[in-house]
């Protein structure tokens, strides 16, 4: 079937975007709309000693200036982290208080202390400048390792030494013993650089309070509007759920940054009640750099032991994770259950131990960014494997193959059970597509042009389809991570799918329709996908962790099972046949092997007229389902990067990039490839360009696109994409998920390629021309002196 599973269908949703008719939050204008601007701390750490809003309040067109004391006085609750992690000594994590508007103390540059509501955005911003806040500055710390040192400024009273938790996984003693007895030990220190997610649409919120109904409506840039409603309702006391509607319309990218419920949304809702006006806030890019949750920021030391045959015997990891000034919604889970649980990589490793210390610093809160923990794990393992191969004088592919997990299910020592995979097959495909056999000739040709050419591998695995509710609940999650769906067959036979997943670029309106088309034999144009509105969709956990297809589509399949069962009952009754003889073929519900059939619209009409239904069957044809995954899914693949370095300048170009991924069943290869393209570009960005920079006083240096290098078109090549498919046994369609793979697998491939080219492993991300040139000098200088 041309439109079903596996078809390269052009996207249904494109038309509104290519004609300028998309409807993003900032495009919405309410009738009595006012504008919010936040008064933000210019200091990284300070006591707030006074707020004088008189000058701002006196400005014509200023409606109100509101502060944190009024907000907490109205009962608005503190912002919380929703995943409880327990330290290895049994103590709970030390979560510091985070008020949407700071009261006593500010803890990072950008921390909001007040909000101005005014008749125009320009006026609100002008008036925010006129609010005078007095501060007593305190010493500040930006870096995780420095925050743990004795005498470092303490950021929250209830987190002595800035320690949030000190957590471990795996067997320390057994791992130490294994490494002590190893024939070879590879040691590595890596930093995983701090990044800003940078969806192109800045965050925005439009909040409206209806006093007559005591009801709130929030339009917002969210990846998970139902989670937003739940948290706003249950924890922040804005309004009970039935008095709060959250709508995430077209959302311009998320990458994790739009999972969380931020101070600005909370404040806009509260301010709309206080002022009786709709309140809109739209971030500008500078504000985004200092308020959107950052990602990564790990410092890690690790040792991996090998036996004489090159088999891994033990892996020991010590990580410090920078959480910023407050614990964001999922922050605690990122360097623990999304990171340390993936440290077995694609390899059969008997002994693994990882210790993680999470610390406060005076920086923007850090949370999940595309990949979330898994890129950090993959980067560490894959740099380790490439480094070990070089030290052992082995081919990097051979060393990996020697250690690949070969049989499934495979239980790792860090609580994951890999369900399916073909790691040799992935690598075979990548090696062939990248023409690794021809590398030596390409390297020689590059050398003739004065360029250093290098090649690097990365064999990644990730845990997606997040996640079985009971499993994550036992690990501390405050929510279940199922998904819900409703399938409505209309009386005219068209089909509406209501899903708790949210599309902000993923193309659900097309791919979800393809699955329905495949199942019911209707054209995708007869299927509509409804998402992003808590008044329309009953519930949902949203889109992150590559879960929409693996979990969201599974819920749709479950609901379709129920619709099919009822549709068959109706058809059997109408066509006077046995229910077991009814099949769905070519858009018809028919009696197998006969020409007796009903079109979908006839089934729909019969269901809704109710004139002639089987005894006891309810009218209507609409079913809902909740799907709770049985396991994580495990996308995996092999990536190969080739780079050329100009030794004179350090300028490095990715000249070839090959990705061979195993995502299980693929609904639309065009869309899946697009996901990989984008992820790879973000991975190249992390490896070579991107870095959030703080100075020693915790002032944010990279506050705009003038300072923070986003990947441009000229920074990346065309990518070669291959697929190798092992079906995921855990969900009905066999899907593993594809949203994060590129961002996870790419950075180590690029850095392994650059270090191969320059002949030294002493290189951290981002490998800017300066960093590469500096690393090259350390190799070349002694040679020059000889």
């Amino acid at each position, binding site marked *: 079937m041309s439109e079903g599973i596996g078809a390269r269908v*052009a*996207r249904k*949703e*494109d*038309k*509104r*975007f*290519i*004609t*300028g*008719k*998309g*409807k*993003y939050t*900032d*495009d919405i*204008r309410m009738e009595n709309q006012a504008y919010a601007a936040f008064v933000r701390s210019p200091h990284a750490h300070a006591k707030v000693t006074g707020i004088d809003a008189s000058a701002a309040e006196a400005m014509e067109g200023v409606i109100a200036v509101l502060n944190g004391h009024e907000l907490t006085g109205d009962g608005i609750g503190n912002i919380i982290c929703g995943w409880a992690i327990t330290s290895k000594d049994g103590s709970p994590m030390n979560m510091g208080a985070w008020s949407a508007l700071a009261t006593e103390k500010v803890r990072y540059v950008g921390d909001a202390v007040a909000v101005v509501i005014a008749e125009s955005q*320009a006026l609100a911003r002008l008036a925010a400048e006129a609010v005078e806040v007095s501060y007593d500055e305190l010493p500040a710390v930006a870096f995780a390792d420095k925050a743990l040192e004795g005498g470092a400024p303490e950021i929250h009273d209830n987190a002595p030494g800035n320690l949030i938790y000190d957590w471990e996984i795996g067997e320390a003693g057994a791992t130490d013993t294994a490494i002590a007895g190893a024939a070879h030990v590879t040691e590595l220190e890596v930093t995983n650089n701090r990044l800003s997610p*940078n*969806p*192109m*649409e*800045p965050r925005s919120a439009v909040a409206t309070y209806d006093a007559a109904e005591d009801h709130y409506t929030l339009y917002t840039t969210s990846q998970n509007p139902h989670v937003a409603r739940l948290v706003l309702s249950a924890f922040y006391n804005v309004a009970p759920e039935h008095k709060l509607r959250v709508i995430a319309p*077209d*959302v*311009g*990218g998320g*990458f994790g940054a739009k999972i969380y419920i931020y101070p600005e949304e909370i404040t806009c809702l509260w301010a709309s009640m206080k002022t009786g006006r709709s309140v809109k806030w739209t971030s*500008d*890019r*500078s504000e985004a750099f200092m308020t959107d949750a950052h990602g990564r920021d790990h410092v890690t030391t690790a040792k991996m032991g090998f036996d004489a045959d090159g088999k891994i015997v033990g892996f020991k990891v010590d990580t410090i994770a920078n959480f910023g000034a407050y614990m964001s919604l999922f922050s605690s889970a990122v360097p623990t259950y999304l990171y340390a649980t993936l440290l077995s990589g694609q390899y059969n490793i008997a002994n693994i131990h990882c210790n993680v210390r999470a610390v406060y610093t005076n920086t923007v809160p850090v949370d999940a960014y595309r990949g979330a923990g898994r890129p950090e794990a993959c980067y560490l393992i894959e740099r380790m494997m490439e480094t070990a191969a070089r030290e052992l004088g082995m081919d990097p592919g051979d060393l990996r193959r020697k250690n690949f997990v070969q049989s499934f299910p495979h239980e790792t020592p860090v609580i994951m059970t890999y369900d399916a995979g073909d790691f040799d097959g992935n690598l075979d495909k990548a090696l062939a597509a990248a023409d690794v056999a021809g590398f030596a000739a390409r390297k020689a040709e590059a050398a003739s042009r004065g360029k250093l050419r290098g090649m690097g591998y990365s064999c990644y695995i990730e845990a997606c389809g997040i996640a079985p509710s009971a499993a994550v609940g036992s690990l501390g999650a405050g929510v279940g991570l199922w998904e819900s769906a409703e399938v409505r067959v209309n009386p005219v036979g068209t089909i509406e799918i209501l899903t708790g997943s949210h599309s*902000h*670029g*993923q*193309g659900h309106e097309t791919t979800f329709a393809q699955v329905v088309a495949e199942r019911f034999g209707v054209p995708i144009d007869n299927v509509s996908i409804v998402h992003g509105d808590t008044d329309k969709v009953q519930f949902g956990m949203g889109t992150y962790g590559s879960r929409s297809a693996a979990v969201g589509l599974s819920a749709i399949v479950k609901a379709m099972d129920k619709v099919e069962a009822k549709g068959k009952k109706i058809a059997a009754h109408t066509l006077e046949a046995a229910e077991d003889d009814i099949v769905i073929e070519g858009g018809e519900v028919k009696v197998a092997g006969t020409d007796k059939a009903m079109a979908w619209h006839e089934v729909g009409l019969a269901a809704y007229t109710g004139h002639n239904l089987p005894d006891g069957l309810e009218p209507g044809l609409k079913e809902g389902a909740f799907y709770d995954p049985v396991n994580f899914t495990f996308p995996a693949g092999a990536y190969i990067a080739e780079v050329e370095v100009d030794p004179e300048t350090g300028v490095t170009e990715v000249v070839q990039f090959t990705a061979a991924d195993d995502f299980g069943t693929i609904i639309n290869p*065009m*869309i899946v*490839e*697009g996901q*990989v*393209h*984008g*992820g*790879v*570009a*973000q991975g190249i960005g992390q490896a070579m360009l991107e870095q959030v920079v703080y100075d020693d006083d915790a002032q944010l240096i990279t506050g*705009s*696109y*003038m300072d923070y290098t*986003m*990947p*441009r*078109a*000229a920074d*990346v090549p*065309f*990518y070669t994409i291959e697929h190798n498919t092992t079906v995921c046994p855990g969900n009905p369609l066999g899907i593993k998920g594809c949203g994060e793979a*590129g961002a996870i697998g790419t950075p180590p491939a690029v850095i392994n390629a650059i270090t191969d080219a320059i002949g030294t492993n002493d290189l951290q991300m981002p490998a800017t021309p300066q960093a590469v040139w500096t690393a090259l000098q350390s190799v070349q200088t002694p040679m020059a002196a000889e």
Partner: protein
Amino acid sequence: MSNVTMTVNGKSVTREVPDTTLLSDFLREDLRLTGTHVGCDTSQCGACVVHVDGKAIKACTALAVSLDGSDVTTIEGVANGAELHPMQAAFNAHHGLQCGFCTPGMIMAGIDMVNRYQAEGKPLTEEAIRHELEGNICRCTGYHNIVKAIEDAAGAMSGMAKAAE
């Protein structure tokens, strides 16, 4: 406040606006043409690219009052009625967009670069497209399919230009 008159997507419009009004705000807020997006505040992301008197400019970096009398085309004005511009069609066919936020700027920049290269008789190579996209940032697509779309549309637009001759 000043009176500004422009032709926007073929229609003459006049509005009284503060002198500080950016073209992007004029289009989005005064004319409610919200297809022109604003993704940064330093003129780098290119989500706001529109055509003024036939040339691509960043609408976030021009004052509306300075463009009195200009002819402005936005993303809402490039299709010919229900018929998509070849650049729009190519972005759809090649999956050159995901979240859609940078897309209007990409399409406007793409049309402009094809027009300029064709006017100068220069080949619009892959390298040239990537270089020309320096001022347009996309976070979703990794640029692969954007470059493919512009390459493809350049062919279609060349055909259009020849047919018109």
